[in-house]
């Protein structure tokens, strides 16, 4: 069962990021890994941390218990899910008293944590297990004609302790490395490490859209063919809300938004349909012309 993983979708992806899920599952398959959503997974707990940290830990622990029962490591597609589950896994592994307390509450829903499973972001897994070389070897449709801007977002990297310092959040490169393996150019742009503002959307929409706007203005200045990301909430900000961001900026943006495995998938020979290429508000017409219409 080594190559089977519990795929953690979280709240947003099943409805608003199916192209991300589909392309990630297909990439897994290309490299001999089965990424399987667990029926009993629910919210990771992150959204309510401001209300109740304890509630967040319980929800995270519950999901970890589901994966532990299935005997599977967790791969998360959403960066916030990855960070909150990784934090909980760390805390529960290290603190016996905390684990005991959490288990007393989990007993109410007949769950139990003994040894929390390993948790990684899907993109981290891809970088560590396949790597840019592994991608480059299997490229069948090089993307030399394309330039992409990478948005790392926050929780793919931070808090760094939860991810065992897998990558320095001050100088991230993993996503760019994976993209470059397809032959594509990865553009530099100012403030590329900044936050999308997603966590504030329900609190102060104007401020949230302003954070997104500041960043997308920088991206736009670098004139990429698309912005590529690894978190459904960053996509909610940059794709679903791009019109509102642009209206608030009083500027044109027209920036196509893609998830990393969609782009990698095309280079690796997956079809436009397999990667859900047309499932975005801001579609990448240039990729569609090259992959969906040409064939």
């Amino acid at each position, binding site marked *: 069962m080594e190559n089977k993983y519990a795929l953690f*979708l*979280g*709240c*947003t992806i*099943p*409805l*608003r990021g*199916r192209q991300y*899920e*589909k392309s990630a*599952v297909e990439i897994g398959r290309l490299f001999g890994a089965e990424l*399987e*959503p667990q*029926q*009993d997974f*629910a*919210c990771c707990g992150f*959204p*309510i*941390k*401001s*209300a*109740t*940290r*304890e*509630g967040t830990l*319980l*929800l995270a622990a*519950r999901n970890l218990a589901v994966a532990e029962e299935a005997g599977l490591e967790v791969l998360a597609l959403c960066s916030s899910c990855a960070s909150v589950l990784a934090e909980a896994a760390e805390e529960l592994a290290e603190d016996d008293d905390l684990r005991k307390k959490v288990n007393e*509450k*989990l007993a*109410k*829903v007949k*769950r139990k944590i003994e040894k929390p499973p390993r948790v990684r972001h899907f993109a981290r897994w891809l970088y560590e297990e396949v790597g840019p070389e592994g991608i480059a070897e299997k490229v069948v449709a090089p993307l030399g004609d394309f330039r992409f801007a990478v948005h790392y977002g*926050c*929780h793919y990297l*931070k*808090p*760094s302790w939860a991810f065992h310092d897998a990558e320095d*959040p*001050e100088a991230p490169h993993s996503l760019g490395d994976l993209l470059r393996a397809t032959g594509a150019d990865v553009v530099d742009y100012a403030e590329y490490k*900044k*936050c999308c*503002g*997603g*966590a*504030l959307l*329900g*609190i*102060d929409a104007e*401020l*949230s859209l*302003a*954070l997104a706007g*500041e960043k997308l203005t920088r991206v736009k200045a670098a004139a990429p063919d698309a912005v590529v990301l690894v978190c459904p909430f960053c996509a909610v900000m940059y794709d679903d809300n791009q019109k509102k961001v642009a209206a608030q900026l009083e500027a044109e943006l027209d920036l196509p938004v893609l998830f990393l495995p969609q782009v990698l998938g095309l280079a690796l020979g997956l079809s436009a349909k397999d990667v*859900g290429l047309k499932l975005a508000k801001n579609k990448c017409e240039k990729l569609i012309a090259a992959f969906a219409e040409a064939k």
Partner: protein
Amino acid sequence: MTIIKTDPNFKHEVAAEPGGEAIKYCFACGTCTAACPVRALDERYNPRKIIRMILLGLRDRVLESDFIWLCSTCYSCEERCPQGVPFAEIITAVKNIAAREGKLHPAYVTQLDLLKQFGRLYELEEFDNKKRLKMGLAELKTTCDEVAKLLDDE
């Protein structure tokens, strides 16, 4: 002259919350504020100042403010703090205290309700499952009552 009510115990209260302990190591350098993307756009928000306000015991002013809800949880502050103060955790601790006193921001009241109802932030309908199946994705359960059971006493 108005006298501002202070509560010297507030810092201990924050320190007693998980993640709050390290507040005492803050030496007010302002690195967190300089790193904060929210601060860069909105003057109302200032991590270093919020820590000062907690240490000074300005309990009501902090708990009743609008600004405590403005952290975007990007973790830039704590990654860069030279004293290892996890400010994102400290502001979470403050918000949790506010929540226990009935001052939870309405956006989170709604989110808690949705989670209890559906186990997710959004309702997954049969219609969504149909779209999933059509793409070759697994059908998913539309609710999870375990979430409400776990959150009911929280």
